[in-house]
């Protein structure tokens, strides 16, 4: 076997096949493993925000069976109860969100504490306050003037105040529902007497563990969930592209996908080239009396014998590369990605071998079609090369592979459709060029003419080169464009002037003086939004209690209180998707898209809102799409001014406080003691840091893809060497100078590169526009400057790389180039 392998390695096509498997291994290994680590890191981050991998949340105490099931499946379990209560100390009292948590809270992420005594600033902990102690958020501890070890009363119990919390997992609550929070141990809860069956509280069961156990847990409990219980998992796949994390994960998948598709194309090219030679060998073996089966065995052995080591070495190399990349990311950002797991490596090896099978199988099948008689006549084995079956099988394999890797049909189809259209278009372009060139270009002795002639007379070779160039450029441009879009969107989502201070519980009488104070302190925009708490009582005059909803979620939402507001202007980042925004004094309601879906209402229906026992009825006049991550107060239901009459309301505001006015919070607390100020500065800081890290990591993934594309491209030119060799020999024997040939080859590559690059650019833009719109939910602007640059770089890369890889042929004597066994 090793002898056979050695013999095979003497063929340049075989070396190329070996190299492309190696390459596929490296690409799949590096990008696959690295991408997987990134993805897990992203999931961890979402988990850290939630404080767990998943949670069940309920308005009533949770049944024990959930916790038992989770423990049985080997998941870690933590519990929490959230409610509002008055916090009292010797300086006064405050309404605060109390979170009573079991000692092992949080399961994911950590609580960041303020330095105090010998506790360093920013100390992180992964446990709850000890029994008898409470920790409080900065705003609360500042407004009540809490001191270390001072006493705080909560219900019937008195606690020792221990730490100030800078940051803690938000626990699934939206940013705006972050009332200043106090954290206590769940064991102390009973004694406070604050929780009884009638109290309004939210009970959570949080779980963490491996994906497998999680999905088994999900499957076990989901059917049992009552209507007032909800399940949430910090899996990026479920949130998909709704947020930035989802977008990054999609992007990584896209990058992996493209690397693999490119590598398989390279393998197919190498295999086709190899087959031209192998057909001759098969015919000789046939003449010598070998039976089909033996021939097949012989071929399979030599291919697998080469593919397996190539795949293994490739994946191991890829592993090494991604380890280095991981280290670089860690050094640059201080973030240690989760360790590499076996799975993506194994998958990489398997995909390499499967690709080989897909590429070689149809060719092996056609072994039967090779007649021994072909040796007596030349030219007959050539027919085998144009094996349609082989092309179809590679296409089918690529589609399956793409769908498998993308785990997302839209993504897979967009990529494939783009590639197919690119190839077809390129073929057409080349054909048109050939026709035009043949008709209009008069023969003359110039390198330019020779280049055009070379492209024309080798229709199939030119088309192969051009399509491959185009496919590669297409992929890279697409990736580049999307990468820019993803990060621009991210940066835009947290502008430097994003509100970093939220003010809630503002009394109507305080709005004007507070506004004055903010403006005096340098705050430029201080919009006050009314918040009116209420329920939905009737839909189209029918009591909601009597309505049947399709999902349990609907019932859950209906039973809940909403925050209504009254606004005359459509808030920024909101878009009306059906109906019309309030125009005149007509009363109306505008509902957020998902809420409308859940409540099963659309524009034209009417809703009756219940605010503290008083009913207000108005028609739904519009459905809105809301950008939730815009860091502004957002509302599910907006009423036109006056609809809610004089219902009790208070106000909220989100403002950007310049860094140098960081002490504004204290002034507000002093002057408006009942206004609650929530400082988000630290959270925003964290978010920005994450964006930077993500950007860096994605650049690494992008580099991998680029590198593999470049190598694939070089491999492709290698595959064309034999025919080039004959051409050069012919030209030389006819007396063409080295310089003349050099110029013509360079021109040919540049021309091909330019055509391929231009078509690829146009297609990449079309596809990324589609992707940006449908997959990433982003707006898309055509970057003209970048496109010109891409085309230029493409042409340059194609001509330089192409030229460099066949330059050595130029120095050979023509007679050598013509000898049958000579392949450089």
């Amino acid at each position, binding site marked *: 076997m090793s002898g056979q392998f050695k013999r095979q390695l003497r063929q340049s096509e075989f070396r190329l096949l070996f190299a492309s498997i190696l390459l596929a291994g490296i690409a799949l290994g590096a990008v696959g493993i690295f991408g997987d680590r990134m993805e897990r890191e992203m999931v961890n981050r979402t988990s850290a925000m939630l404080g767990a991998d998943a949670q069940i949340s309920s308005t009533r105490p949770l049944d024990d069976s959930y916790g038992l099931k989770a423990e049985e499946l080997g998941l870690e379990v933590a519990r929490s109860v959230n409610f509002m209560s008055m916090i009292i100390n010797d300086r006064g009292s405050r309404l605060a969100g109390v979170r009573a948590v079991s000692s092992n809270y949080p399961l994911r992420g950590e609580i960041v504490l303020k330095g105090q005594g010998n506790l360093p600033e920013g100390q992180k902990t992964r446990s709850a306050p000890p029994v008898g102690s409470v920790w409080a958020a900065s705003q609360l501890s500042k407004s009540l003037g809490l001191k270390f070890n001072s006493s705080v009363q909560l219900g019937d119990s008195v606690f020792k105040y221990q730490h100030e919390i800078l940051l803690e997992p938000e626990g699934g609550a939206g940013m705006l529902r972050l009332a200043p929070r106090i954290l206590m141990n769940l064991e102390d809860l009973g004694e406070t007497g604050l929780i009884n069956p009638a109290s309004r509280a939210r009970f959570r069961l949080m779980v963490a563990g491996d994906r497998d156990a999680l999905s088994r847990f999900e499957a076990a409990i989901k059917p049992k969930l009552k209507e007032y219980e909800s399940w949430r998992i910090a899996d990026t796949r479920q949130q998909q592209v709704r947020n930035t994390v989802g977008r990054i994960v999609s992007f990584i998948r896209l990058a992996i996908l493209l690397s693999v598709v490119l590598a398989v194309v390279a393998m197919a090219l190498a295999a086709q080239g190899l087959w031209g030679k192998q057909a001759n060998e098969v015919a000789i073996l046939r*003449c010598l*009396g070998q039976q089909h089966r033996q021939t097949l065995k012989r071929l399979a052995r030599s291919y697998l014998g080469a593919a397996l080591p190539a795949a293994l070495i490739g994946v191991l190399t890829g592993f090494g590369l991604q380890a280095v990349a991981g280290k670089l990311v860690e050094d640059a950002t201080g973030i240690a990605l989760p360790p590499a797991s076996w799975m993506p490596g194994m998958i990489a090896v398997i995909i390499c071998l499967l690709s080989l099978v897909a590429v070689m199988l149809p060719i092996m099948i056609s072994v039967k079609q090779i007649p*021994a*008689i072909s040796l007596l006549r*030349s030219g007959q084995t050539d027919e085998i090369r144009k094996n349609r079956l082989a092309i179809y099988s590679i296409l089918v394999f690529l589609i399956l592979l793409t769908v498998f890797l993308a785990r997302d049909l839209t993504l897979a189809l967009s990529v494939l459709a783009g590639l197919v259209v690119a190839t077809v278009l390129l073929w057409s372009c080349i054909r048109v060029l050939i026709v035009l060139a043949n008709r209009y270009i008069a023969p003359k002795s110039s390198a330019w003419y020779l280049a055009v002639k070379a492209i024309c007379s080798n229709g199939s070779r030119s088309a192969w080169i051009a399509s491959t160039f185009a496919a590669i450029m297409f992929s890279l441009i697409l990736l580049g464009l999307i990468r820019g879009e993803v990060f621009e969107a991210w940066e835009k989502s947290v502008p430097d002037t994003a509100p970093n201070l939220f003010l809630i519980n503002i009394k109507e009488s305080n709005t004007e003086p507070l506004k004055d104070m903010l403006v005096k302190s340098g705050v430029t925009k201080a919009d006050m939004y009314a918040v009116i708490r209420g329920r939905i009582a009737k839909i189209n005059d029918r009591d909601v209690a009597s309505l049947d909803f399709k999902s349990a979620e609907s019932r859950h939402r209906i039973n809940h209180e909403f925050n209504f507001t009254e606004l005359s202007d459509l808030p920024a980042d909101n878009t009306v998707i059906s109906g019309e925004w309030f125009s005149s004094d007509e009363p109306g309601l505008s509902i957020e898209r998902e809420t409308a879906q859940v409540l099963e209402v659309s524009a034209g229906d009417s809703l009756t809102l219940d605010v503290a026992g008083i009913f207000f009825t108005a028609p739904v006049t519009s459905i809105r799409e809301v950008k939730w991550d815009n860091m502004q107060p957002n509302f599910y239901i907006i009423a036109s001014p006056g609809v809610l009459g004089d219902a009790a309301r208070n106000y909220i505001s989100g403002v950007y406080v310049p860094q140098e006015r960081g002490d504004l919070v204290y002034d507000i607390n002093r002057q408006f003691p009942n206004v609650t100020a929530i400082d988000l500065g630290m959270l925003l800081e964290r978010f920005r840091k994450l964006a930077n890290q993500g950007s860096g990591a994605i650049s690494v993934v992008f580099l991998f893809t680029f590198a593999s594309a470049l190598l694939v491209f070089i491999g492709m030119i290698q595959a064309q060497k034999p025919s080039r060799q004959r051409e050069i020999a012919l030209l030389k024997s006819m007396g063409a100078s080295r310089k003349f040939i050099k110029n013509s080859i360079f021109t040919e590559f540049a021309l091909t590169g330019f055509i391929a690059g231009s078509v690829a650019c146009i297609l990449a833009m079309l596809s990324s526009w589609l992707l940006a719109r449908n997959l990433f939910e982003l707006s898309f602007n055509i970057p003209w400057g970048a496109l010109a640059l891409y085309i230029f770089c493409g042409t340059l890369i194609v001509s330089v790389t192409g030229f460099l890889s066949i330059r050595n042929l130029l120095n050979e004597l023509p007679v050598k180039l013509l000898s*049958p066994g000579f392949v450089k």
Partner: protein
Amino acid sequence: MDKVNIPPEHVIAQTIRINKSVTMGPETINILNDVSLTIYGGTSASISGISGSGKTTLLGILAGLDLPSSGTVSLLGQTINDMNEDQRAQLRCGKVGFVFQSFHLLPNLTALENVSLALEVVPNSNQIRERSLAALEHVGLAARSRHLPSQMSGGEQQRVALARAIVTKPAILFADEPTGNLDYATSAQIEEMMFSLCKDFHSALVVVTHDKALAKRCDQHHVIEAGRLV
């Protein structure tokens, strides 16, 4: 190796009234018409004729590489008309040798490996290396055993091909214009070698040639004209 020692005067390959026609679109081309030919063990036969007269076609059918449209063909004492490709291959295995006009050596194999190939396809063959080296010695190329075809001249390549053809000591050797690509002196050398090796191994020889001198050396001499023996 099961050596078939077919004595002289014993029929080793035979065609009885064979026809070969191919259809190309609407047209049917008759390549061979009513050809009957018998080759005896240990003897030599030449086939000559102008280009396109059907020599290669006839050789291919005689060797079992191709089947006639009608008529009977037998090889090594068996009728091959009803055999499938695998069965015909099995029949050839180790007992039939070939020399082609364009050598058909595998470019990625050394001279020795090219010769060994003929033994490798024969089940249970032993001493492959030794026997291949011996065959190379017969054609005077033992010193070049590690060279690739691209490092050898045309004549040397054809000698390697000859070594590959006789290494199994075949009962019959088919050669289609073996010297067609070589100069006069080299041709003579190759021919000489081919005849003497066939004699040494008691192999029958069927050679297609334009070369009158070569044709004359053969025991039988056939001329084909537009698909008919004359």
